[in-house]
């Protein structure tokens, strides 16, 4: 325990003095280390430490939140008092003791971040750098990075419980920039897990970098991509950013409870083609988006959002579930980047489940379209559900066969529309890590899906109509 229980009780009682229904203290101590090789040398080894507290009060359908890194008793009591003035009323609750709640650890760590020296880590990245420059003289630059996060969280609330959690994450990444006759192209890959340095043993970094270098060099000769409406095959793994952007965000509690989502009143209705089953699963051991307990004390769940095309669940936290009514409960996905952010419902590891089709059959079924195998990210307007995501590796398909690599394209559409246009889902589910930015900051998430076919989607390429 790093935060005093006695102080927590006093702060909670001050916060509850104007009639709050619930109060909570979130203490976070997080250290991030980043090792970066670039320009054929160590660019930097940097570290950041944040340590602070967020205090939240909920009263009915309102909440107030304060954050500070000044952890003195005087400052915390004063902040709790200022925060309580957001409400007017008489005390309804008080806290006299706090009992620890234990959670099952779902992401065991085999090798702690201090089990390797800086020298060994830098040399690990150097092997990737050598592989990139040896691949081709068209490789202009390589950036390899190793990110280590060690986070300790303690939460105390007015229900008289407290818990603590340690979260260890590791991510290794490679970016290669290729150049020919003034034309630059790049590719990136960055696997990440809620685990320690065992990740470095499990990944063949050299092979990964060679693949990234090949993609960057191949793109130098890629033709302009086609444009207009066409059938699109989305590759497995990070292709799941489609579901994340188009459907995941509009199914988050804040969008649903405030009726800002097109899915707000669709509970129990068919919102997708019958081949679609979609899940937010915070229970996957060691996955990038997994945590043993969320940021308000709920265990993660395997939450089936869409079953055979029918909307079966939302993602909810304490505040948004309250707003939805007594039939709705938190789903263990209340998250935040740091103590400076008010927590809210966020995705964990969100994916479309395996279907029954084979990848080769999906490709063979497309007469004239594209196959997107790698993505850089995307975004959505949750109120209209319009999304964009960018495919960095895109191939043309003609008469059921992959023909040529084309330049990156954007895919644009409405989530509710695209869900109905998914006609085939393969059996090759894979997950990919990403950083998702929204109102409670940037959090680690996995996106995922098997290879699937969308019968028609708007594609933005400079090569004119297909």
């Amino acid at each position, binding site marked *: 325990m790093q935060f005093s229980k006695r102080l927590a009780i006093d702060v909670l009682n001050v916060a509850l003095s104007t009639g709050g229904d619930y109060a909570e203290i979130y203490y976070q101590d997080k250290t991030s280390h980043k090792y970066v090789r670039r320009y054929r040398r*160590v660019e930097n080894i940097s570290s950041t*430490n944040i340590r602070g507290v967020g205090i939240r009060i909920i009263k009915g359908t309102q909440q107030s939140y304060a954050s*500070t890194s000044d952890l003195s008793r005087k400052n915390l009591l004063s902040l709790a008092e200022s925060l309580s003035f957001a409400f007017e009323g008489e005390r309804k609750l008080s806290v006299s003791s706090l009992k620890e709640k234990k959670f099952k650890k779902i992401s065991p760590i085999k090798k702690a971040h201090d089990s390797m020296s800086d020298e060994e880590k830098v040399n690990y990245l150097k092997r990737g750098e050598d592989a990139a420059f040896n691949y081709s003289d068209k490789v202009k630059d390589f950036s390899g990075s190793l990110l280590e996060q060690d986070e300790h969280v303690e939460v105390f609330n007015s229900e008289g419980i407290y818990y603590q959690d340690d979260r260890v994450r590791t991510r290794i990444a490679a970016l290669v920039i290729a150049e020919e006759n003034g034309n630059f*192209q790049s590719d990136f890959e960055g696997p990440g897990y809620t685990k320690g340095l065992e990740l470095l043993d499990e990944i063949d970094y050299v092979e990964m970098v060679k693949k990234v270098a090949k993609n960057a060099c191949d793109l130098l000769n890629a033709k302009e991509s086609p444009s207009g409406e066409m059938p699109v095959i989305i590759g497995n793994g990070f292709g799941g950013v489609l579901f994340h952007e188009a459907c995941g965000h509009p199914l988050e509690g804040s969008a649903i409870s405030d009726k800002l989502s097109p899915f707000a009143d669709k509970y129990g209705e068919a919102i997708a083609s019958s081949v679609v089953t979609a899940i937010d699963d915070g229970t996957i051991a060691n996955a990038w988006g997994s945590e043993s307990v969320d940021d308000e004390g709920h265990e993660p769940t395997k939450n089936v959002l869409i079953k055979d095309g029918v909307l079966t669940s939302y993602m909810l936290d304490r505040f948004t579930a309250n707003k939805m009514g007594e039939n709705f409960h938190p789903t263990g996905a209340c998250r935040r980047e740091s103590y400076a952010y008010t927590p809210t419902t966020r995705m964990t590891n969100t994916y479309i489940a395996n279907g029954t089709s084979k990848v080769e059959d999906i490709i063979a079924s497309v007469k004239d379209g594209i196959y997107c195998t790698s993505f850089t990210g995307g*975004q959505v307007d949750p109120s209209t559900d319009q999304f964009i995501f960018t495919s960095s590796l895109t191939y043309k398909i003609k008469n059921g066969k992959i023909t040529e690599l084309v330049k*990156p*394209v*954007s895919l*644009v559409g409405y989530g509710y529309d695209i869900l109905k246009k998914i006609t085939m889902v393969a059996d090759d589910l894979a997950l990919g890590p990403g950083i998702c930015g929204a109102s409670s900051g940037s959090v680690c998430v996995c996106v995922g899906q098997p290879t699937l076919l969308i019968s028609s989607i708007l594609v933005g390429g400079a090569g004119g109509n297909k």
Partner: protein
Amino acid sequence: MKVNFNKYFEIFKERDIFPSLISISNSKSTSVSILNGEVVEQKIADGFSISSDAIYQGKRGIFSTDHADKDTPLLMADKIIESARFGKEYKAEYFLQEKMKYHRLSINKNFVPATLKELRDCALKLYSEFKSLDPRITTCSIDISMTNIEQEKANSYGIKAKYKINAYLGSISFICKDKDDTRSGSCSFYSLKDLKDIEEKAHKEVHKALHEAIDFFYSKPIKSKRYKVIFSPESFSSLLSFYLPQLSALSMQKHLSCFEGKKGEQIASKALSIKVTPFEPSINSSLYDYSLVPTKEFDLIKNGVLQDYLYSLESANNEGVKPNGCGTSSGEGAVSFLTIRKGRSTLDQLFARVKNGLFITGISGLNSGIDEQTLQFSLPCQGYEIKDGKKDRAVSMIIVTGNLKDVMNNIVALADDVNEEMIGKTPSVLVKNVAISGQ
């Protein structure tokens, strides 16, 4: 939190860490969020950060944290040494060693602070005024915050500078519904004065945003082909913000800029002139850069010709030239605020000149749709068809695609309708031969 810089420098020097730069930021903000006329969240944020950048045994070490107590100077010294062990070779010349004059700027002398209750009342008043504008507004959220930021920097050569800014920040987002169609809109605004001023700015921006959202009901795509396109100030500034990093001197020195060796050469259309204007009173005004080098006004691109790169102290030293106050922590150059030279035509005159084309008023997908290295982009957008020289029907679900170098080269003319955007002051810009994907 107060920080005694000298204490840090003394401990650093004892540990053979020299020279060093310490940056601190103290911020306080109070904010209110309302949704459909109900207060949903009130927030008090008390932020602090301290970071140091230093040389240990000829190599660079860096560290940052958000708390400062009696142990922090020693912690920072340890972390700098740890970081520098494999850090890049770094020179003392990358730290400012002689005192320089800083521009005087008082943009906040009339700032009137408000209480949380006054912020709440302001947000609720804005809501009731906005809601009455159109019955099709179904959902509206308003955020108003008051922020105070104090930044202070000092280095071990005795150079020190301080900058303080108070501001009100606001944003309004809304959803409109008309039978089967749903549109959303949003706007953001700020004031360096008082709540009355932010109310006036809110009115101006929200009318514009609402007007556009309503226009887009039942809008449809346009045929896929190349068009003459007028980019609104907002959409052009979005694109420009991804173009500027390629003008960083450090990128050029690392052979990663497509503008390497192009100083004094034509890199854009003759119609384009961009000036770096850090002293324009705005929320992004700046008096000094990351390394404490004073900022200054200068021509970046004049009549399409690249006048200078964006220099940090590091990149300027590498070339033996004077820095121009654009340094960032990475050593790359960046612009805090710029001004694009406006044209002589009104926006209507530009429409007439285009005859048949497209007016793009909004671009989205910027976090993934532009490759900052290759400058290729493919972004969803919306706007209006220009027909027979006039703004015509609203157009949505289209994608604008191309390369930013081509966009800058294909500028035909600029309007006189300058607007302040995050990046600076920019007018609408007419560009020929732009690929649009739609129907």
